[in-house]
């Protein structure tokens, strides 16, 4: 979706604010919000891209105003409701519905180290024909899907060169909305700064994006 989250190349968002000796979390609740997200994700009711899309759906003005972990908290609450793990009435009251059964958490403290150590692979060991190869000229498609996509607006319609083929990966536009992974080749594609931003940009600079087959067409 063409949301405010897709902010690469925007002006007017101010200077970078740097904090020296920044703590990992600025308040205890940030750590709880972070950890709740990971622990709730262990139910495997939604993909990481579904969570990202939930954050993208936060209204633009709120998105820009909210702190990072406030966005996480808002998004995980919505995923919990939509997945049926909790009801909106339960979120609003803070109490389990009368007579609701008690589940067993899928992630215990003892399982945390192993869960983080294994992570979650986004690559898939399946044979899929690549549409492109390293060194090939490609054009990022001019698409404007209303759902989740990882093709930023600033690269759409632009010419690039395939730098490398990363292999086969699940397709975010698919897994954000369904169980269908639509695995396909993912490439690092290099765009010159001048192609992206015009003649004012440095002739030496470039931006690499990781783009899937469905985002690209031959050029």
């Amino acid at each position, binding site marked *: 979706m063409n949301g405010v*989250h897709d*902010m*690469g*190349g*925007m*002006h007017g*968002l101010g200077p*970078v*604010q*740097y*904090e020296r000796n*920044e703590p*990992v*979390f600025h308040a205890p*609740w940030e750590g*709880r*919000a972070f*950890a*709740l997200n990971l*622990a*709730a994700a262990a139910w495997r009711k939604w993909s990481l891209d579904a969570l*990202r899309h939930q*954050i993208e759906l936060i209204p633009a003005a709120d998105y820009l105003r909210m*702190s990072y*972990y*406030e966005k996480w*908290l808002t998004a*995980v*609450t919505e995923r919990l409701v939509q997945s049926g793990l909790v009801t909106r009435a339960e979120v*609003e009251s*803070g*109490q*389990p519905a009368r007579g*609701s059964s008690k589940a067993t*958490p899928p992630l*215990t403290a003892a399982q*945390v180290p192993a869960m*983080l150590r294994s*992570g979650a*692979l*986004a*690559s898939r060991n399946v044979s899929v024909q690549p549409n492109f190869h390293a060194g090939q000229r490609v054009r990022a498609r001019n698409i404007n899907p209303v759902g989740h996509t*990882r*093709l*930023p607006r*600033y690269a759409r319609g632009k010419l690039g060169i395939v730098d490398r083929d*990363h292999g086969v*990966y699940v397709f*975010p536009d698919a897994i954000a909305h369904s169980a269908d992974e639509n695995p396909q080749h*993912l490439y*690092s594609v290099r765009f010159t700064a001048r192609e*992206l931003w015009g003649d004012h940009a440095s002739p030496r*600079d*470039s*931006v*690499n*994006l*990781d*783009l*899937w087959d469905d985002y690209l067409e031959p050029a």
Partner: protein
Amino acid sequence: MGTSSHGHDHDHDHQVVPSDPALRVKALESLLTEKGLVDPKALDALIDKYERQVGPRNGARVVARAWVDPSYKQRLFEDATAAIGELGYGGAQGEHMVVVENTPQVHNLVVCTLCSCYPWSVLGLPPVWYKSAPYRSRAVIDPRGVLREFGLQLPDETEIRVWDSTAEIRYLVLPERPAGSESLDETELAALVTRDSMVGVATVAMPARGAGA
């Protein structure tokens, strides 16, 4: 009107849940715990992991090893995930690693314009500026201006390569080894390597010598 507790902000009149995120997260954790959906001790363990165990010291060890061991550096470019795994780092948000090398000719800079993708396994959780709208919006269109704000003025001749983390590939910058560091061992080198240098918003410098040293 002004004395009423309502009427100032109509957006909040119908909000049932508390607007303060600290209260909201407390209420949500309590609900999920009561329903048996999360184990609060698992939350403690997750927080402890990223507050005390996983951080930029991991990445600094990777960089220092690459500086002293050319065969390790070679493996890092061939298969960064495996080479970083040799030092015991990997897993969540480091499953698919790529290392990009800074040289006198090329400077690399990592960003995630769409959200906040960051190599947790080697750098820990991202700082606020990395997740902020100013950095995300400008790193791709004005990398030289952004670097100047970090105090890094690169010559016009230097080629800047920006890496926008749009997929699950996570990027780590291998900074240049500072001049004058020849006599330092791997541990001493690792101590010089900063988080910012591994994102590409800084270079690695030798510590300033005190007078008479």
